[in-house]
Structures are given as structure tokens and as C-alpha cells.
């Protein structure tokens, strides 16, 4: 039987604030266990949370970028359950009044939108980590690290509107780009900055009612999400084909073994006993604060790609490539503003700049320091003026990264200018002919192709500086002279 896959994703986005959500401890990755803790994030008796408003503003920004409703007033709630790495045995989260509801994430391209509706985005605190049990002395112990406790998370829940593992992949890719674009998270799934749970169900093609769903947890790479969902789709389809029922369950994805295992079934589900967090007043955004956040919202990736296509004449491919990150798009656009022709800028950034970054392992920010848009734009103007061979242009590009200075001056300093002087080139041409008598003979014997070799030799002698058209002319002239006396 043919089934339609129905997917909803819940993604925890670790917010890139300086301090934790409810205390002043630094929000940093890793570190010696239990060194970034205080009475508040350790949940010591008597300690109280106070809200990091920067984290709330980040959730609002995400909501605005998704076209959601950002509520002027939202409520924190306690989610109660016992877990050793959660020191209060409740998590401060949001329940029936989240910051953000509605909106959509566009997982399509600049030319083909695909909107996935969003249910909600809310703010909550992270838990600590339990190490795997280990022998310490004569007993086995599970050790706890509370450094991550209280790190701010935005939980973003999609409607069950995704239809394939590939769409789930596209959703996470688009979300990762968006959170980086907005500067609210590094979006690094391997580091746990994005954590995904997937709700998966199947229904016969054409059916409108949802099937029984399972929830897959512990998805910590974008590829892992695709593989886990594909495996679950396969498992459910096989059960349904056999006429069996799907049992609502929570599954864990084992990344190493690429296998799903059942964590708990519905009967074992928690009753979280949510109730409003009495230690925190309702979270309020004034109209002015929201207006400011809206005003400061950057142009979003797909809108920017569309503008690059429409007003700069870029191909959809180039526009997509250049909007992979906001830094890259900014770099491109500033380079164009500095006089670099758009298509040349797109080509050079798409090829040479990205290759350089890949080879050196450097960041765009660092690269930008060595080759600011202003100089890059001037360089591109020069390179596109027809006075530089592509070889010279590449050499000059390499020089520009190495040392400061105006591109024209650098070119002059390093002799990276085209030689078009007939007299000077004629002298070199004579040397080339003298050094290659047999090739000269071939040419004079009627083998026209031999000229290409001689041009190449002349270019080599001049280190590529010779104007190719002039080079050909002077070689022909010199060859003609040698033919005459006979």
C-alpha cells in the first residue's frame, strides 16, 4: 500500500546569549564540569530565577522572522518531573502562553517557496548532563555536570506539515541558516546547539485523518534526522502492511548503530503537572520594544536572494550560494557597492574566496579583514577591465590577500601589468624563435598550429604579462622576417 509520510519537528535551539537564562553564569560550551554554576542554576534551596531579557528578545526576533505572532505577554510555567541532571526536578519552560505562535518557515528556494507552518516557539532552560556510569574506586557512579543547566533554549514546534525525510533535512538546513542569519545561535547540531525530536506517522495516500505517531528523540545531526525518519517510515510501513497497529511510543535513535530503539510507550508517559511559574512575573514586550526589534530585523535569506536575482541579475544558483550566510551576503553586496561588477563578484566569491577559506580553514570574518569589500571591489573592477589576463588576475588576488594596498599599485609593484609594447615584446619574440628553431621551421613549413606553442613560450617568458593579441602579432611579424631571405 502507498502511504503518505506526516512529519512534525520540535527543535531546541540553544541561544547564543552571553549569560544563562536565569542567572549570571557564562553561557559557554564545554569547560571543566561544574565550574559554570551558581546557587540559581544549581537549584539550591532559596535561590530564585531572574530572566535574561536578551534571550527573550532572541525568541521574539525568531518569531518576527517567521512571520509569527509575538505575544506582548507570555507566561513561564514549571514542567515537573524527576531527573538527576535537573537540579530543581522541574524545568522552567512555557506552556499555554508561549512567546511566539503561528508563522511559517520557508524551506524552499528563492524561486520555489515551500512554507512549513509553525505552531509555537517558547523559551526554556536547559538541563545538565549525566555521564555514563563508570567505576570510581570500588563503586559504579554516575557523575553529573551542571554547566549546561540554565542555558537558554528556544523550542520551535512545527505543524505536522513535512512530507518526507528530505523535507525534514531541508527544514533543519533552512532553520540553521535562519538562526545563524539572525545571530541567535551558532546552529551547530553536532555541538548540540540544535536538537531535534521528530514526530512521525503514516497514512494511506489520500486519507485526511492522521495515523498514530511515534516520537524520535536524540537526533544530533541533520543527516541523522533524515536517516532516523527514513528508518521509522520503513518500520511503520512494514507494520501497517502486515495489518498491525502502530503503538504510540517514544523512540531513541542510535547514531552509531543507525538503529531505533523504544524508550517508552504512551502508558509510561509523564504527567508534567504544568503550572504557572510563581517565581517569574509574566514576560512582557512593550509595543516600542517589538517595533524596535522589527525595525532591526535583517533582510531574510530568501528575500535577499530574490533581490540579488532581480536587481543584480544573478542566477538563482549564485543567489542561493551567496545567501548561505549573512556574512557572505554582506560581503558580496558591499563588494558590489565598492565598484565590483555583480557577476564577477559572484564568480570570484563563489570560486576563489570560498576555495581560499576552505584551503586555509579560515573564517570569512578574518578573510574580510585582509581583503575588505572596498579593495575587493576595486580589484574586480580592474580585473574586469580587459587589461589583466585571468592568470594575472589570480596572481594579483593572491597578492591582495597577502599585503595591503590599492590593486592597481600592487599590480605595478609586482609587475602584474599587461605588456602591450610592440618593441619590447618583439625582442622577446626573437629570443623565443631563436630558442625553438625546429618549431619555427614547422611553422614556416606550413604548420600553422606551431604558432600556439610559440605564443605559449612567449607568455611563459613574460610570466604571463604579455597582451596575448600583441604577442601573436609580434610573433607573426618576426616569423615573417625569418621567412623572407630565402
Amino acid at each position, binding site marked *: 500500500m502507498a502511504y503518505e509520510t506526516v512529519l512534525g519537528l520540535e527543535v531546541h535551539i540553544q541561544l547564543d546569549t552571553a549569560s544563562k537564562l536565569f542567572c549570571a553564569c557564562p553561557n559557554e560550551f564545554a569547560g571543566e564540569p561544574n565550574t559554570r554554576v551558581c546557587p540559581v542554576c544549581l537549584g539550591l534551596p532559596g535561590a530564585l530565577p531572574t530572566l535574561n531579557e536578551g534571550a527573550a528578545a532572541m525568541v521574539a526576533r525568531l518569531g518576527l522572522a517567521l512571520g509569527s505572532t509575538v505575544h506582548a505577554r507570555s507566561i513561564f510555567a514549571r514542567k515537573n518531573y524527576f531527573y538527576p541532571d535537573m*537540579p530543581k526536578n522541574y524545568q522552567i519552560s512555557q506552556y499555554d502562553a508561549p512567546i511566539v505562535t503561528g508563522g511559517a518557515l520557508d524551506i524552499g528556494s528563492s524561486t520555489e517557496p515551500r512554507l512549513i507552518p509553525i505552531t509555537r516557539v517558547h523559551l526554556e532552560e536547559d538541563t545538565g548532563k549525566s555521564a555514563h556510569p563508570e567505576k570510581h574506586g570500588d563503586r559504579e557512579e554516575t557523575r553529573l555536570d551542571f554547566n549546561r543547566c540554565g542555558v537558554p533554549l528556544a523550542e520551535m514546534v512545527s505543524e505536522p506539515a513535512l512530507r518526507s525525510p528530505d523535507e525534514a533535512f531541508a527544514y533543519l538546513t533552512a532553520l540553521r541558516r535562519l538562526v545563524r542569519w539572525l545571530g541567535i545561535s551558532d546552529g551547530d547540531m553536532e555541538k548540540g546547539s540544535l536538537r531535534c525530536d521528530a514526530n512521525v506517522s503514516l497514512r494511506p495516500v489520500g486519507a485526511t485523518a492522521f495515523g498514530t505517531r511515534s516520537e524520535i528523540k536524540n537526533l544530533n545531526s541533520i543527516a541523522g534526522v533524515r536517516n532516523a525518519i527514513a528508518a521509522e517510515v520503513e518500520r511503520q510501513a512494514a507494520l501497517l502492511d502486515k495489518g498491525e497497529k502502530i503503538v504510540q511510543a517514544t523512540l531513541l535513535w542510535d547514531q552509531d548503530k543507525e538503529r531505533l530503539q523504544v524508550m517508552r510507550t504512551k502508558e509510561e508517559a509523564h504527567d508534567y503537572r504544568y503550572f504557572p511559574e510563581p517565581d517569574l512575573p509574566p514576560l512582557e514586550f512593550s509595543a516600542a520594544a517589538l517595533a524596535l526589534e522589527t525595525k532591526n530585523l535583517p533582510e531574510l535569506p530568501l528575500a535577499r536572494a530574490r533581490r540579488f536575482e532581480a536587481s543584480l541579475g544573478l542566477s538563482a544558483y549564485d543567489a542561493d550560494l551567496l545567501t548561505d550566510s549573512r556574512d557572505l551576503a554582506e560581503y558580496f553586496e558591499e563588494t558590489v557597492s565598492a565598484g565590483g561588477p555583480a557577476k564577477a563578484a559572484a564568480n570570484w566569491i563563489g570560486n576563489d574566496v570560498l576555495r581560499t577559506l576552505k584551503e586555509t580553514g579560515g573564517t570569512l570574518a578574518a578573510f574580510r579583514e585582509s581583503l575588505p569589500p572596498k579593495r575587493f571591489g576595486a580589484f574586480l573592477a580592474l580585473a574586469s577591465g580587459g587589461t589583466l589576463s585571468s592568470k594575472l588576475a589570480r596572481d594579483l588576488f593572491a597578492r591582495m590577500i597577502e599585503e595591503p594596498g590599492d590593486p592597481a599599485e600592487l599590480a605595478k609593484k609586482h609587475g602584474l601589468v599587461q605588456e602591450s609594447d610592440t618593441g619590447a615584446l618583439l625582442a622577446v619574440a626573437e629570443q623565443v624563435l631563436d630558442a625553438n628553431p625546429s618549431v619555427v621551421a614547422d611553422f614556416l613549413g606550413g604548420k600553422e598550429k606551431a604558432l600556439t606553442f610559440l605564443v605559449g613560450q612567449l607568455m611563459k617568458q613574460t610570466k604571463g604579462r604579455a597582451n596575448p593579441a600583441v604577442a601573436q602579432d609580434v610573433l607573426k611579424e618576426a616569423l615573417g622576417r625569418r621567412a623572407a631571405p630565402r
Partner: protein
Amino acid sequence: MSRPLWQESAGTIAERVESGALAVDDVVRAHEEVAEAWEPHVHAYLTRVKGGIRPNGEAPAKRKLLSGVPVAIKDNLCTQGVATTCGSRILEGYVPPYDATVVKRLKAHGAVIVGKTNLDEFAMGSSTENSGFGTSRNPYDVTRVPGGSSGGSAVAVATGSAAVALGSETGGSVRQPASFTNLLGLKPTYGRLSRYGLVAFASSMDQVGIFSRSASDGARVLAALSGHDPLDATSLPGPALDFDALDLGEGAARGLTVGVPRALLGEGLDDDVAEGQRIVEAALQAAGATVREVTLLPPSSWVATYYLLATAEASSNLARFDGVRYGLRAPAKNVLDLYRETREAGFGAEVKRRILLGTYALSAGYYDAYYGKAQKARRRIQEDLLAALEGCDALLFPTAPTPAFKIGEKADDPLAMYLSDIFTIGANLAGLPALSVPAGFTGGGLPVGVQFTARAAREDLLYRLAAALEHQLSDPLERRWPTKPS
């Protein structure tokens, strides 16, 4: 001066220590002698600190209000380096790494903390009989309870081992013991005093409270400890009470209007308490205040509403006591057993009862019927009290329906025990400030008390009314001290 040091007011001690006329060591020693004489009979303290906890490196307040003043504090306020048990076996030996904000401010004002006082476990009770470390006794009759849950603090001030004391209130835990021990007991406006470092029972109602023997001393402590605390998100904005601007002279109540909800004073009210109410009404009129009748809904709904909300919050607040990180840890084979065994051994019967009640009230399927409904009732009660306060400056009615009861009398009847808070709970539900003041003695020599309730942040009115009564009825320095049993 003929009066012994331990009978002096906090104000006199502070002024004389500040001026250099009095040595802190002498003050502390005089109070320690009282404690040593009384402790075998009353058991006010769980921890006494020889020489007191002195200010140690805290930045001193601009105008120190409590220099050298011996203060006893309830053992649910965190003290850095000094055990804080909340009267519970589950926290036996727990030493907090930080000071509660009110403790910090006591130190900044030069106060000397003489010890940590006994209480009903986690402040749950009305007699201190629920303490995990023995019952405190009423110094006016050691066969009777001192009230609770802040019974130890009341006893300390009533016997003179401390000049003033801090307690905490969730439903009357300062006012009720104050009325049983011939003291003033203030439950400030919710948010008036920081809860940071007060071990939570029911966060939406918990408030640090003040025991004093005079209006002036109580206002002095409130002035020292109030003012916004950025570590408590529910702390009121704005500055501390201005002690120097407060007029507590003979005319302090002139022109004020006091509303009496006459319907409350019916059935079940002890004759001596009713007599106390009459004496106070007459004294207020003599002091130039107007007394008029107001209507109030019957307080029967207060108890039900309170016990649903307070227990719900408590069930979550007390989840952190699990044996994983601090306090008692029962031997166990796995983490679930660790939770069970630790909580079984560490919590007393009343705490367990309230955790169960609260867990039930928040459970799926019951939330709306219990917690949700109680929240609505709470708003109704708040509106009712505010409506009664329209047209008057304060309400006046008894603090407790009876004077101190016998130890053991209500220990096996939780409902009867809960009803001893019937008059005090309203202020906690509504977040309003209320002050219990002495209203004479029964024929058998037991103190009785009545209380004033005012609009939010109007503690100044409460202390003015109390001061006026002192001028009319009895000088606090000529108080009737309890007699030590031989």
C-alpha cells in the same frame, strides 16, 4: 539605666552602639545569657552561634539602622557557612554557600545574628510541632505551643534572647505566633522583602516577616531590609521604607479610618480574643482614628483556596530534595529508590501530606477543578479585600480565633490545625501587608492579638496604628515579660 540590656529596644541598642556608648560584645553576651536560661524550657533555636554571626566584609549601609542589634532568624533563611535545615531531617547538616538577601542586609546594617530558630518543617504548620527537631514551647505557658510556623523566632523575641527576629509567612506563620507571644508580627506586602535565600514553600505567597516588641523596632527592621532586590523577580520596585520620615508619635493614628468586618467576629471566636478586639477598637477611637464597619466574604473559602494553591506550589518547590546533590541521602540501589528512600526518611508526615495534596491538585484531569478554580477564588478574595479597604486605611480583625493551644491538642487533627490560620490567610492570598499587634491577655495569662491589613506597600500605616495603640494601651518597654519556669 536600670533596665537590663536584653530588655532594651533595638532602636536604643543601635543608637548607643553607633555612638560608642555600648559595646556589641556586651549586648551579645546579655542576650546569650537569656538564651541559655530559657532554652531548656522553650527550645527556640536549632543553631546558636556563639558571639553571633557578625558583619564580615559586607559593604555597610549608608545609615546603619541595626548596629549591634541581636537578631534571631528562622532556619529557612540561608546563611552562608551556617547550617540551614528548614526544620527538616532532609536538610540536616546542609550548609548554604550563600546568604539570603535579607541576611546580607541585616549584616550591612550592623546586626548580629544570634542564631537560627525552630520552625514547623519547611514552614508547614501552626505550632512548631511539625519540626523535625523537637517542638518549641510558649514562654507564657510552656505546656502550650508558641504558634507557628515561625514559633522559634517568636519565642526568641518574647523571652529577650533577641531584640527582633525574622520569620516567614505563607499563611500566617509570623502573625499567629506573634499573637500567641505578646509581640508585633509583620507580614509585609508580597514583594516588599526579597525572597532570595528564603527556602520556598509556596512561592506566590511566601514572604519574610518581622517580629518585634514595638512598632518602632519593627519599622526599623523593615526599613533596613526593604527596597528592590534584583535577585528576586517578584521584588517590588522602589526604595526602602524611610524610617526617619515615619511618625510614630502619639498622634500617629489621628485621622485614619479602620474598617471592622463585624461578621467575621462571630462563631468560634474565643471570648478573650473578642475582648481584645473591643479594647483595640476603643483605643483607636481614643487615639483619634475612626472605626467603621465593612463587609467581607466569609473567610471559610480562604482556607480551601489556600490549601490547594500552597500545596500545589509546595509539591513542586520541594521536588529538589531528592538526595542527589545535598542533604540527606538514603542508601539505595538505583536512582528511583534513592528518591523514594530519601524522601520517605527525610520528610515528616505533614510535609508528605501537603506534597501529596499538591501533586493531586496539579494532576492531569484535576488541574481545572482544583488548581484552576482555586486561582479564580484567589482573585475573588483579593478583590473582596481591596473592596473592603476602599474608604478605609486598614482592616481590623483578630489574628487567630484562640490564644495559644496546648501542645498535642491539634497535632492529630490537621483540619483543626489549618483552621487556626483562618483569619491570617486572606492577606497572603491577596498579597497585602498585615500586622498582628498585642491585644492584652486572657485571664489565664495568655497573650491575644489582633491584626491590621492595609493596601499594598502601606506598611507605614500599619506601624502608625500599632504605635498609636502603644501610646494608648501600654508602653512596650513596660511589657509583661514571661516568667521562666523554675
